[in-house]
């Protein structure tokens, strides 16, 4: 095991796997723990396949995701971000998913302005039983990101840390 901080511990096997991702698009999926998280678990139980570059981050509610969280992901080189919240009317925190939707729209505008393509960010709403839709949406955004190419910031982050930028 490798220790990266006071609380976080990453198994060596996972690090090895991340190093061998190669050109596979790196997609971050913010999952509401009431719906999308369960859909992800269901997809796993059913042995449904999706891109190995996908990383899932459970959140208490999509309304809890700050705009900085998503921008930071792109700043650090992630190729695409998918936000998955509850169906309209189904949010356990009343309107967290609707608020998240508006924030996502604003960040898409910002990404377009920055020159990163707002298409790299998407939000979908689904229920905990919709494992098939969960996987389909992940595949959709992976395809979009593959078409757009890698996040140019990923290479620049490397250059910056090497002092060559």
């Amino acid at each position, binding site marked *: 095991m490798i220790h990266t901080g006071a609380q976080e511990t990453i198994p060596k096997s996972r690090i090895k796997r991340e190093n061998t991702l190669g050109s596979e698009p790196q997609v971050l999926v913010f999952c509401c723990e009431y719906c999308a998280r369960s859909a992800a678990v269901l997809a796993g139980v059913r042995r449904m396949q999706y891109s190995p570059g996908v990383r899932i981050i459970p959140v208490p509610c999509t309304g809890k995701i*700050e705009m*900085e969280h998503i*921008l930071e992901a792109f*700043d650090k080189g992630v190729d695409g971000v998918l936000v998955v919240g509850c169906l309209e009317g189904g949010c356990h925190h009343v309107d967290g998913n609707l608020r998240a939707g508006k924030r996502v729209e604003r960040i898409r505008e*910002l990404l377009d*302005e*920055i*020159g990163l393509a707002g298409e790299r960010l998407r939000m979908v709403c689904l229920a905990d039983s919709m494992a098939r839709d969960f996987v389909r949406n992940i595949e959709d955004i992976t395809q979009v990101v593959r078409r757009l190419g890698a996040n140019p910031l990923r290479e*620049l982050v490397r250059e910056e840390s090497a002092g060559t*930028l």
Partner: protein
Amino acid sequence: MIVASPKSITELKSIIGGHKKVLFAGCGTCVTVCLAGGEREIGILSYAVRMARKIDRMPVEISQVTIERQCENEFLKDLAEPASRVEAIVSFGCGAGVQAIAERFPDKPVYAGLNTQFLGVLEEQAVWAEKCLGCGDCMLAQFGGICPVTRCAKRLLNGPCGGSLETRCEVDPDRPCAWQLIYQRLKNIGQLERLENVIPPKDWSTAWYGGARKIVRKEHQV
């Protein structure tokens, strides 16, 4: 309160120009309440500008500080230390805040990160409406507390123009006719006779048309 809106990322990028170390200075008063230049907003904008500059292969180091009020010299001392480490400051305060920082740091370039818009109120979550022009000679008592100088597109002081559509302004149907509101308000409070007073032409010398204004309250001076 003073209502402002943030400049676009493209404009911010162009304002910062070739500087490599920049301070984004937020203000914790009016522009925080109108969600334009508070701690949270400058956090988002600094991410966006940093990413945009990196893509242009011109990385910029952005530090952030939000002080209580940029328009008061007393609070500006908190900017001194972070300002000493940067090449330029982008103020996310209103126009007064930007100028106060520029005066406090005469040898440092200071730029505006917001477009200061108007004096207004929060009508509903994230919606602000202009209510006051700051004309320096308030006439609200005459009009039941509704300002035709600000809210009538033609600034009429003696009744409506006649072009209003139902109760809406003919210049912008999304806006209510100020004179309709004044009539309704005076009727509700039993002061319709005020409409019989003929208001003379307004003295605009008290507004900014007479140049930048200054107020001195001697009883509070030390």
